[in-house]
């Protein structure tokens, strides 16, 4: 890949991320038009897209974005009110930029018509705002006259600007930035030279200086920030308001603490360390009785939040291709296996000096495994935020009023799982919108709130993540499903099924109770595909519904695909692993138990009849049958089913290895793992065994 291509790719990736942030920000603004932080975020994203766009030769994008940015600047200044029209326009622009990004990859032909239309509407909006500027100012008495409260009056800012050493090689000149600051108002700049090394070690192309700037300006903090907009990612910039007349009279002491922290040399790399130092200062202040603990703590919390925001903005990302990650995960898997082997050898040898290092390695391996698997963990929120747009657009299209409530967006799941979840979730949410939630008029008749609700929630539950999609729509009609299933030949006419069993028929291929096929659902993937995808992720799908009240679909997914907790058992000479998550209990199966059942494969466990499967017979293994067998009782499709094995060995950290395409046809086995002594054990798929 050529150098310029690499930059363009980097830009594309960055822009895509920014665009999704724009989407989130604009939807936040829609929810709460007073959300100034979101407006600023939106503006900054657009500004960065424009700026780096022109830098990397995406001139069309830069030019288009400029128009959007101009409007957003006015929004930020409070000159253009937040309206539905504005939100629609910004969303359309976002899509347009996305398309333009793809265009440059050669996917689509440029669609200059739409682009022009958007630009025209944006300009029209600007024009209107110019015309009734005075009017809107009068109208807006209720809300703050401007989104930026620091704008319009003289404020003193303390800026600590510590550029990245390599700033020159990136084509930036800090002196130019300082000049820009000077132009803004009364400005005194002090350069710190303590970072300069001795002349032998000095690299003339590095920047060792950093600056403290005291600036008095009326232009507002956003204008100050904008100066640093292109360097803020890799430079350490702190902008603080030193003097805001109303604020500081009441609380002079925290200000002192702040200054102390500022002056105490905080290296950018150890901001966290600085935080702890800060605490000490706070404690000192409390000890000397000059300020109450509560005040210091509240100031601390505020400062910590600021630091955290900055940290999360800067630290977060190192881009690593996912195949490299996969390789790392595989290597760690092998390490775990080898370590288990080492532990076993060490236990056999019983050598005193060996025990300690082996235990140490065991600890390190476990830690390494956890952190490597953690790298692949992503909060599911990234997926959730996409659905806000989906719900917004679809409900508008169908004339329904629907609110999407998301919970547990911070729940973490393996990246692969999240990616594969995308399509099923889209499908289910579309179902909710299209078939589930009724139009407002109908809802009113039924005494329901006119706004329908879809609740999308994720939560950890043991080794699983549970995702629920719930709507308060019409719900599923078991009778209709039953009739349809009989008509399609999915269940025999006379079959007596529980409601749950009937509802589960919606996962059968080709099943749809909806009479009409709309352009939203009723085509493409069906619930059977949803079920298949979830099962391929070793998860389960469950549906419950109350007719007329709503439907709730529950997905249960494992945290990771790479390593599971297993129960190691033996049959004959072979080892097998049962996923521990499904196992409920283990008990003995004596000869008397078998005799009592008179040939039927059922067993009485504390008064409960449990059917069981003889894995020995199932696998056609005849030799060496032990007198005492064991039975592992597992939860299979909400029923307790026993699996008869020879011995239960115990828990086992199972690194899942695929059997490969050669064993594609095998049904009872979902994979294999390698035991401490190097033998291969098969992982059984309990759902398929029944």
């Amino acid at each position, binding site marked *: 890949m050529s150098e310029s291509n690499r930059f363009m790719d980097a830009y594309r990736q960055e822009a895509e991320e920014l665009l999704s942030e724009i989407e989130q920000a604009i939807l936040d603004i829609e929810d709460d038009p007073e959300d100034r932080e979101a407006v600023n975020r939106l503006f900054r994203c657009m500004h960065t897209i424009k700026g780096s766009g022109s830098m990397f030769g995406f001139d069309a994008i830069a030019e288009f974005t400029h128009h959007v940015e101009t409007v957003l600047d006015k929004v930020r200044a409070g000159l253009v009110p937040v309206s539905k029209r504005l939100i629609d326009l910004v969303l359309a622009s976002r899509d347009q930029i996305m398309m333009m990004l793809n265009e440059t990859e050669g996917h689509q032909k440029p669609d200059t018509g739409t682009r022009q239309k958007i630009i025209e509407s944006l300009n029209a909006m600007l024009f209107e705002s110019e015309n009734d500027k005075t009017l809107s100012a009068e109208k807006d008495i209720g809300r703050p006259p401007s989104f930026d409260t620091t704008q319009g009056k003289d404020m003193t800012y303390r800026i600590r600007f510590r550029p990245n050493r390599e700033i020159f090689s990136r084509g930036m000149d800090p002196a130019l930035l300082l000049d820009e600051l000077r132009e803004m108002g009364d400005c005194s700049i002090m350069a710190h030279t303590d970072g300069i090394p001795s002349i032998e070690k000095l690299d003339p192309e590095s920047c060792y200086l950093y600056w403290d700037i005291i600036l008095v300006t009326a232009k507002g903090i956003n204008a100050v920030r904008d100066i640093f907009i292109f360097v803020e990612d890799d430079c350490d910039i702190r902008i603080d308001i030193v003097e805001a007349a109303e604020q500081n009279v009441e609380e002079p002491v925290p200000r002192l603490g702040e200054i102390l922290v500022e002056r105490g040399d905080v290296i950018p790399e150890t901001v966290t360390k600085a935080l702890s130092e800060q605490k000490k200062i706070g404690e000192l202040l409390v000890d000397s009785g000059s300020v109450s603990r509560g005040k210091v703590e509240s100031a601390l919390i505020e400062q910590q939040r600021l630091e955290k925001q900055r940290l999360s903005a800067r630290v977060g990302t190192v881009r690593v291709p996912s195949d490299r990650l996969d390789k790392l995960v595989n290597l760690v898997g092998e390490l775990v296996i080898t370590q288990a082997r080492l532990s076993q050898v060490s236990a056999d040898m019983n050598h005193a000096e060996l025990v300690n290092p082996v235990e140490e390695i065991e600890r390190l391996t476990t830690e390494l495994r956890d952190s490597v698997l953690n790298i692949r963990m992503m909060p599911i929120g990234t997926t959730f935020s996409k659905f806000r747009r989906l719900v917004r657009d679809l409900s508008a299209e169908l004339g329904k009023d629907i609110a999407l409530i998301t919970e547990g967006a911070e729940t973490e799941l393996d990246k692969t799982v999240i990616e594969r979840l995308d399509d099923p979730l889209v499908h289910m949410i579309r179902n909710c919108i299209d078939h589930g939630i009724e139009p407002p008029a109908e809802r009113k008749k039924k005494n329901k709130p006119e706004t329908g609700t879809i609740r999308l929630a994720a939560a950890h539950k043991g080794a699983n993540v549970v995702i629920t999609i719930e709507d308060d729509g019409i719900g599923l009609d078991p009778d209709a499903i039953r009739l349809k299933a009989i008509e399609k030949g999915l269940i025999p006419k006379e079959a007596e099924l529980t409601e749950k069993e009937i509802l589960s028929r919606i996962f059968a291929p080709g099943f749809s109770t909806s009479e009409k096929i709309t352009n939203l659902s009723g085509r493409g993937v069906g619930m059977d595909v949803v079920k298949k995808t979830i099962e391929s992720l070793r998860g389960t799908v469950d549906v419950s519904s109350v007719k007329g009240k709503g439907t709730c679909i529950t997905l249960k997914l494992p945290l990771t695909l790479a390593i599971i907790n297993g129960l190691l058992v033996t049959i004959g000479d072979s080892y097998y692993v049962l996923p521990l998550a499904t196992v409920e209990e283990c008990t003995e199966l004596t000869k008397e138990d078998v005799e009592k059942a008179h040939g039927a494969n059922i067993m009485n466990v504390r008064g409960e009849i449990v059917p069981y499967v003889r894995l020995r017979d199932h*696998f056609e293994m005849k030799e060496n049958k032990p007198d005492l067998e064991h039975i592992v009782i597992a939860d299979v499709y909400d029923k307790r089913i026993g699996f008869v094995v020879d011995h239960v060995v115990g828990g086992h950290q199972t690194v899942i*290895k695929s059997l*490969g395409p*050669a064993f594609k*046809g095998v049904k009872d086995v979902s994979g*294999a793992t390698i035991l401490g002594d190097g033998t291969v054990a*098969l992982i059984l798929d309990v759902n398929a065994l029944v």
Partner: protein
Amino acid sequence: MTDIGIMENSQYLTFKLDQEVYALDIIQVREVLDFTEVTKVPRMPEFMRGVINLRGGVVPVVDLRLKFGMSITEKTVDTCIIIMEISLEGESTLLGALADSVQEVLTLEPDQIEPPPRIGTRLKTEFIKGMGKKNDEFVIILDIDKVFSSEELTLLQDAEEEPVLKRAES
């Protein structure tokens, strides 16, 4: 790669099944292992002998003798597992094959290779890439991708599965 292989001098690994000598393009051979314990995968066709642990990876092992209609491979001192790379449904994957003994690495020129005979072998013609001639002896050069094409695997699995089902019903 196969086309060029026949056009130019190529190296082949020869091995014995029963008394016949077979050959594999060396490019597809990854390594040769001593016979180790094979873990059987239940309810699979008999020629799929199971899986082995290859340095932390799980590799399926097939019994070429059974696949070619001979009796099951008995373990002797000479029994080997040839690990080869085959492409299955466009996916490159490792597969081990049992061989009674591994012979040598053989260089064959294009004119030493003849097209597969239509009759006279116990294998399907499409499994054979060509017949190599060496010292008046023939070696059968296998097209191993064809031998383990997905159709071949599923075909035999289905055939195996049916009797099992019937037994379960009765």
